[in-house]
């Protein structure tokens, strides 16, 4: 175990360019997925230069096919689908990243407390179980209908159902680690609980958490698209892949490009994140990949 983690650490920090190349060849999924993600991030950042105004109505150019002026065609209001898809990248990535970070952070705290204190565990885990019993998309819709739709509310609404999954993962790691003799050794040498958690237990959760965070990120992007499709997601003045698809579905048969391009981007993004997640899991925890 110790030698494999050392090996993974050595592999993730290649010392020379030759080593980096070797590492990249062995981890094609991580490299491929990261490259796609990097491109998407660049697109999101450079959106104002890459695309026109995504909200500009041009009633004369309604439902145009993809052409040289409108690469991805136009929608029923004559808005450029290309510009909308490019700007939609921002929303998807922001939501994916924010939800992954928030859900991981909150889930980590909840999981560590539950794994460490039995009384907290019995109370908090029942709450988590209750949250897991509600379908994520329904909970999100309920939260959004209660409050005015905004990006922040969407992020919060998607984060809440993801927390229990992270918390369960962290809790299981904490439970398996806290019985180890080195934790008992730390207790008997007078280490305070907070220090035991941070110094002896938390490092063990990092590898599974990174992997889990990528899955949370991918699922958050999909949930946001689903919510937007149902009309409960990001407000219509902010273009997101979900609400582009939602608006385009009525014209699906005569102008399929309105939903094709955002759908394609959505699929590519989620695929890229999952590739990175799978690759990270394989390098960070070789035991799981061998089992599968």
């Amino acid at each position: 175990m110790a030698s494999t983690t050392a090996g993974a650490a050595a592999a993730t920090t290649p010392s020379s360019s030759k080593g980096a190349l070797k590492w990249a060849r062995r981890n094609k999924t991580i490299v491929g997925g990261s490259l796609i993600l990097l491109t998407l991030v660049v697109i999101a950042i450079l959106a104002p230069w890459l695309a026109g105004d995504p909200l500009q109505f041009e009633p004369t150019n309604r439902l145009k096919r993809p052409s040289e002026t409108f690469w991805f065609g136009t929608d029923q209001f004559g808005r450029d689908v290309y510009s909308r898809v490019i700007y939609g990248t921002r929303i998807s990535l922001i939501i994916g990243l924010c939800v992954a970070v928030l859900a991981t952070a909150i889930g980590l705290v909840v999981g560590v407390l539950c794994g460490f204190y039995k009384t907290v565990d019995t109370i908090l885990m029942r709450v988590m179980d209750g949250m897991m019993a509600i379908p994520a998309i329904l909970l999100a819709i309920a939260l959004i209908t209660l409050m005015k739709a905004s990006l922040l509310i969407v992020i919060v609404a998607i984060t809440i159902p993801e927390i229990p999954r992270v918390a369960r993962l962290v809790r299981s790691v904490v439970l398996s680690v806290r019985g180890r003799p080195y934790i008992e050794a730390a207790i008997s040498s007078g280490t305070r609980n907070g220090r035991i958690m941070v110094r002896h237990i938390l490092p063990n959760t990092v590898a599974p958490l990174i992997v889990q965070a990528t899955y949370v990120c991918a699922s958050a992007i999909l949930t946001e698209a689903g919510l937007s499709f149902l009309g409960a997601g990001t407000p219509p003045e902010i273009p997101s892949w979900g609400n582009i698809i939602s608006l385009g579905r009525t014209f699906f048969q005569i102008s399929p490009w309105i939903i094709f391009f955002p759908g394609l981007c959505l699929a590519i993004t989620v695929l890229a994140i999952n590739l990175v997640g799978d690759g990270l899991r394989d390098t960070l925890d070789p035991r799981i990949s061998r089992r599968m």
Partner: protein
Amino acid sequence: MSSAEVVLRVKDLKKHFPVHRGVLSRVVAHVQAVDGVSFEIRRGETLCLVGESGCGKSTVARSITRLEEPTAGTIELNGVDITALNSEALRAQRREMQMVFQDPYSSLNPRLSAGDIVGEPLTNFDLAQGAELEQRIAKLFEHVGLRPEAVNKYPHEFSGGQRQRLGIARALAVNPSLIIADEPVSALDVSVQAQVLNLLIDLQEEFNLAYLFVSHDLAVVEHIGHRVAVMYLGRIVELADNADLFGTPLHPYTEALLAAAPVLEVDGPRERIILQGDVPSPMNPPSGCRFHTRCPYVLPECKRTDPPLLEVAPGHHVACLRRPVGDSGAPLSIA
């Protein structure tokens, strides 16, 4: 030695583990892992706890450090009853009582460097910081026979014996008065065992430490112990000075235990006592003397009366009905 101050006084220590069964996990029984154990350890003295697997010797050690909460009894460390302390007060007392664990592989955090591991107790009690901390860690490394340059290495870079030295250095860091060692050498090769035992003996002389040394290995106990307590089914059946116990064992279980240990038989085969049957379940221990089901000298009386641990000769305690104190003050012989 007997006039030295008492470091640890354990009185009537009990640890019962509840057994849960069924859907509602009701408590259906208790495993009486430790059932009324009393002893004292003085400064500079080693008390060995011996017995076969499952007799409760490790549970005694873990209860004293309160890694397991004792069910009943008192544990006095330098006169302070630590069974009643809350967690912060207990943490403060841990400075006086450090532990060395059995498995040198899993008792060291693989993600921390050797220096961090050894220095952790010092940081816990705010005893040293910065350069002073590094200095004290280097000194501890020297004390246990490790090169001070090794502070930046990680546990997997050390051998088993070196790792146990790290564990000992960690225990020594805060200058405790008592070190509880739970089978500290049983995971090591025999040649390394001797080195670690001699290190423990040297450190004891240097720092006047008291040891509670848990072991199942009689050869090890004979080498390191000043006094020995023999445990059977959660009780101490015999407690005596090292020489007395190995020279004139008074409890039939001790006799059997000594007879089972391999020795060179120069003067022809020894008379051996071979125990019949298994150890009874600690969930439902036998009535009367707990050893009566396997005792070769069992009397009808043994099934009814639970023999108390009595001092039958100076410093020699035994719990056996066949060892009443005679008129002369000397114990009567068996049979």
